[in-house]
């Protein structure tokens, strides 16, 4: 691990200001992703602003009947909250489908959104990667990365976003609250937080340097069924090959793109009376297979159709 300096923030605005003013600063919350990457020297922060003890762990009702989950709530705490479990079961299901219990006890809601891809070439400093080293090239394009994106990828990057939680948030239409270095509060729709790679895959979110996620806000729960389905190489403690979150009439897909993929085309098809298979086709028809991951297109079609049909799962 490279050397760094450390401070423990005592306010969200102070943390944002410190992170913006200190060269090479990064926020540290649970640390489960950042410290892993620091050990590999893929992340090389010169300064850590520890936001883990900020009073941002509360989960509270909002005036309109929604729920505000503080960014420092752990994944376990959010998944176990009675209001989340009963009113937003798709969120609990997505959270407990991710990582291990030990990691969920440490990882935070804010950190979950800001975690980085698990593309094996991003994790291998011996291989070129445009995320690590812009302009170096993408090893995954012709590599053995069967988890590659099938939607929204570019010649610069075919990685996927690893969060299960963010897929559920997209289906639920959540918003994300942040505080910027100058102290102003900003609200972004969940689908506006992460970026597709384009020519600059090293820029992963629409947050400014030093902007800190302070909360995730859920609107009132939608009418209708909620469900998270995740397909992967083993039954537990593995990243998804494909996942989906269904919340009423909204559908979002995971492990297909560098952001949680809101399936608006499938939603529109369903609204127009399409069958589950037709709705799946409406979304996945635009997918592009990469090197060795064409199976994900078949998988996505089948899992979407099965979920919309209501076929029992798992």
């Amino acid at each position, binding site marked *: 691990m490279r050397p760094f300096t450390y401070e*423990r923030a005592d306010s969200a605005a102070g943390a944002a200001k410190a992170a913006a003013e200190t060269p090479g600063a990064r926020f540290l919350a649970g640390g*489960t992703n950042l410290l*892993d990457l620091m050990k590999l020297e893929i992340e090389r922060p010169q300064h850590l602003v520890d936001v883990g003890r900020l009073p941002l762990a509360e989960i509270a009702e909002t005036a309109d009947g929604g729920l505000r989950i503080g960014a420092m709530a752990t994944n376990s705490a959010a998944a176990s909250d009675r209001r989340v*479990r009963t009113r937003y079961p798709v969120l609990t299901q997505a959270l*407990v489908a991710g990582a291990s*219990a*030990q*990691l969920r006890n440490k990882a935070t809601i804010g950190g979950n959104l800001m975690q980085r891809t698990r593309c094996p070439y991003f994790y291998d400093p011996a291989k070129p990667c445009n995320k690590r080293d812009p302009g170096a090239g993408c090893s995954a394009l012709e590599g053995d990365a069967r988890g590659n994106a099938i939607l929204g990828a570019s010649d610069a990057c075919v990685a996927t976003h690893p969060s299960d939680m963010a897929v559920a948030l997209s289906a639920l239409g959540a918003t994300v609250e942040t505080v910027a270095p100058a102290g102003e509060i900003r609200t972004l729709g969940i689908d506006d937080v992460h970026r597709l790679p384009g020519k600059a895959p090293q820029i992963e979110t629409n947050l400014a340097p030093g902007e800190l996620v302070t909360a995730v806000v859920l609107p009132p729960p939608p009418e209708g069924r909620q469900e998270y389905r995740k397909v992967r190489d083993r039954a537990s403690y593995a990243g998804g090959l494909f996942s989906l979150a269904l919340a009423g009439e909204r559908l979002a897909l995971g492990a297909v793109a560098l952001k949680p993929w809101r399936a608006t085309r499938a939603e529109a098809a369903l609204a127009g009376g399409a069958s589950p298979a037709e709705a799946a086709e409406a979304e996945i028809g635009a997918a592009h297979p990469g090197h060795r991951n064409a199976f994900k297109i078949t998988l996505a079609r089948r899992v979407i159709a099965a979920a919309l049909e209501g076929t029992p799962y798992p």
Partner: protein
Amino acid sequence: MDMPVRAAARASFEITVNGERRRIEADLRTTLLDLLREHLGLTGTKKGCDHGQCGACTVLVEGRRINACLSLAIMHEGQSVTTIEGVGLPGNLHPLQAAFLEHDAFQCGYCTPGQICSALGMLAEVEHGEPSQVTRDLAAEAVPLTDEEIRERMSGNICRCSAYPQILEAIRDAAGAAA
């Protein structure tokens, strides 16, 4: 204590380990795992992968299980850590440790301290009614401690000797749960 703003590359803080308050002076980069093993001589907690994948380093912080390898020691200033040495020692074993012996729930034993600390944390989570991905009824107050629940909840602890059936039996037995 107050952390100096923009602390230098070394950290000075207090942490409670197995009920004993310890004063620490260490490189900021010291993980909780290395602190326990190398600074405090508590080598019961094991380093397997050092990347949060194997669970050998599982300890309890404020009663909750975490991977000690993916945490900086300084992040735990003022907190209370329990390692396998604090769970029970020869002559005074915790019932879960005794159950691991009884059921032969290991071969090489390297993952065992992490398995036991993890199981302790897991049983507390079940006691609190926290759901897992195999919990059928998310609205229920109580979670049944079925074999399926134990297996799922222990998936963050790898045993390369593959003593999983015996680990399951030991946990089930110690928890007094019906299969």
